[in-house]
């Protein structure tokens, strides 16, 4: 098969993985080699769906022995199949990198023969890039669940990031849709990877240096909208994974209709807004001091689609407001709708010099339209008196439906 055709098939098949991050790794260029990473990820292009193109995202092959019904590559799908040789992937990566199209490679694969065999193939690509070609760019490898622990160890030596996808928030749902997969196996891979990362850190602490081991950590992906699990369940699983396995990121992927789909799955347009709200909630949990149960209490297990989760929380907890922006501690400021982490830090700085007025906040890029009802400032803020009126929720027009994934990813609320 022509390389061009293979590329089309195996890139197309890889596009359902949401992760494209290339940040969090520092790797100096090797002498005579090409490529480095400097901590910050770079998006080299954007596709018309607003998604960033940072890595060359490919499957080594889309043949697969499994039958996960949400996946276009499952064995029962009649999609066209192709398989790269490891060398073809190596050359594509180098050629693209030298032209500055990409930050590196994100390589995944359908499972061929056995999980071990598949994992070995992925490792061989990464090893060739690093050893033979002294490639210093970013490498993200998929950790195939149920492979031997030793293989995850090897993968971590070459890769910047590893990811084992949890796929669905509930094990029982996973077993129905992906009969061959188990949360225990997937989390087993996460545990191995975490072990490797901690060991490398420990060694660095003791001996000042250790070989790289997945310096950009591990991430995972959850598909939303393919099963009835509510947002509360999704977020609970995510926060459990963050805690247990020290994940850097959980990606939420709105279930997207796939060609040759399993007939049992929903076929509407993917729930993009829901995905966006989940990212916002995820940020609230990680950086704003919110607990899952505050964002999705049992009385409202799904995030509202028409307002962001912080605003929704604030409207449910008006007793908490108004907040005096000149006196409140950081944790309280973080709970004001329309004010993000960066806003809060700027406010705290500025507060030492002046008593903050509404116009100061505007200059600090606070979303006044949202925040004004929840704060008191040095000047008179008449809107603060509306906090207890029944009409308050109507003040907030549902946001425009066109969402930028970028805002979701940076998570400023």
């Amino acid at each position, binding site marked *: 098969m022509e390389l061009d055709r293979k590329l089309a098939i195996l890139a197309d098949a890889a596009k359902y993985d949401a992760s494209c991050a290339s940040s969090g790794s520092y790797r100096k260029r090797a002498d005579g080699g090409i490529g480095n990473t400097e901590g910050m990820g770079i998006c080299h292009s*954007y596709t018309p769906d607003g998604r960033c193109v940072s890595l060359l995202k490919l499957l080594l092959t889309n043949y697969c022995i499994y039958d996960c019904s949400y996946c276009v590559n499952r064995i029962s799908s*009649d999609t066209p199949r192709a398989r790269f040789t490891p060398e073809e992937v190596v050359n594509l990566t180098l050629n693209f990198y030298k032209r500055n199209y990409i930050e590196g490679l994100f390589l995944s694969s359908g499972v061929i023969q056995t999980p071990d065999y598949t994992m070995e193939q992925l490792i061989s690509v990464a090893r060739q890039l690093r050893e033979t070609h002294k490639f210093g760019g970013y490498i993200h490898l998929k950790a195939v669940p149920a492979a031997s622990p030793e293989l995850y160890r090897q993968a971590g030596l070459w890769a910047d990031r590893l990811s084992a996808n949890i796929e669905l928030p509930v094990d029982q749902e996973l077993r129905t849709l992906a009969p061959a997969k188990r949360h225990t196996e997937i989390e087993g891979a996460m545990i191995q990877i975490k072990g490797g990362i901690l060991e490398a850190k420990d060694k660095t602490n003791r001996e000042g240096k250790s070989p790289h081991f997945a310096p950009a950590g591990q991430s995972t992906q959850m598909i939303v909208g393919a099963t009835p699990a509510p947002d509360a369940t999704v977020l609970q699983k995510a926060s459990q994974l963050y805690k247990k396995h020290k994940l850097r990121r959980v990606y939420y992927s709105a279930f997207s209709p796939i060609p040759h789909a399993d007939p049992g799955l929903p076929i509407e347009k993917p729930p993009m807004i829901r995905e966006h709200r989940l990212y916002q909630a995820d940020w609230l949990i990680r950086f704003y001091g919110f607990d899952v149960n505050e964002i999705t209490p049992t009385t409202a297990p799904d995030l509202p689609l028409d307002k962001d989760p912080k605003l929704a929380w604030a409207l449910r907890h008006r007793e908490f407001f108004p907040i005096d922006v000149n006196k409140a501690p950081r944790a309280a400021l973080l709970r004001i709708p329309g004010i993000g982490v960066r806003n809060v830090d700027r406010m705290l700085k500025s507060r030492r010099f002046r008593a903050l007025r509404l116009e100061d906040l505007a200059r600090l890029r606070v979303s006044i339209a949202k925040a004004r009802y929840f704060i008191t400032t040095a000047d008179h803020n008449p809107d603060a008196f509306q906090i207890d009126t029944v009409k308050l929720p109507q003040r907030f027009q549902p946001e425009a439906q066109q969402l930028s994934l970028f805002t979701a990813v940076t998570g400023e609320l």
Partner: protein
Amino acid sequence: MAILEVPAQDFASWRTAARKLIRQGATPLEVHWLDGTSDAAQGLLAGLEAAPPEDDASKATTTTKVPREFLSLAETVSCFRDPQRWNLLYELLWRLSHGEPHLLDDPADPLVRKLRVMEKAVRRDAHKMHAFVRFREAADGAMVAFHKPDHHIVRREADFFVRRFGAMNWAILTPDECAYWDQKQLRFGPGLPRESAPSEDEVEDLWLTYYGSIFNPARANLTAMTAEMPVKHWSTLPESKLINGLLRTAGDRMYEMIRKQPSSAASFVPSDTTSLKVLQQAACNCQGCELYEHATQTVFGEGLRKARLMLVGEQPGDQEDQQGAPFVGPAGKVLNEALEAAGIDRADAYVTNAVKHFRFEERGKRRIHKKPDGRHISACKPWLEAEIALIKPKVIVCLGATAAQSLVGRDVRIMQDRGKWMDSLHAPNLMVTVHPSALLRLPPGMSYEEEFTKFVRDLRLATEEVNAPLSNA
């Protein structure tokens, strides 16, 4: 009050001049900075060249103290493409050294805010340069890019490309200034037009293929895209020529994806029945996939409503298709013999197939069995699931790979996995073994007797499990 006209060409020259002016006590209102790129400044600069260069070091002791943060801010802002930047920087420097040393800590100050915005714009432009420079391979093997930054950032950012692409010869051409790297030294030269860069590169075609393939038409969102990849950069990005086409066809492709959703038996399965008979009658009218078009009739499962053992085959064959019952042809004969040898009364079991219509190819007058595709198996699965849900067998035996694919959900290797109990959601016990028709087509060298015995052994295992007392029940 006399206004001083001072030229500033780059950060270094502004800094030298600004230091001197601060020491002289020149207020911001008294100084008018001329941008080095403007005509007036060029004239002034030309006049200055004759003057003896100022000896900066000798005056170092009287240097104005400014926070380091100011220097980094000023250095960045000096790249901003606006002649006003020098005046604004001087105003800030003046205030920092005249009673407001902590001014930079107050991000809400209007002047600070303004300069921060400029700083951010330069940073963003630098970031976009790292991202959007596109090299093409020139005839001599060097990699050459043409890029159009918003601000004067070529010098500032060239080092990024050295760090990354140190082991290749490259050039970045811009209309203002160009940077060249030969693996040893970085040089700068005057600006060049786009035509000076190569006009094509073979690898670019693969890049375009890649770009077109990773776009998910179900998620089209142009606003988000142009926010990050402003249209002004499109002219130097090869992939931008695909954008309009991709968007134009996104709706169609999305529709196509949905249209390609294979049909399924699901909508034909009555949801609220507890009667096998009703189920069977409904299946007679199934059009869940195209197989009904050519086959004679639906061949539904047969057997005991309360069977504890369920046998699942692949699909009806020629005989079954004509008679309307499962396992009545040659393979059925083998199955009956094996069941008997295993001590199982077929009347106690429930026998069915993963696919309920006969798939075949016509060769002359004969209809040759053709293995069902994945889509037939999944289209027909709702019937099988409905049968299982009603009968609730204690043991399911999958006869052959098709049944296994339908119920186990992975590529089971029959020869390896036969006779083993597998984890399944469909029944407490599930096993795979060969399809009896395999015994009729044994490759040379394999003995029927031996294979038959193995088949019987598997079936016996199944019946033992059927009769075993429920554990922990």
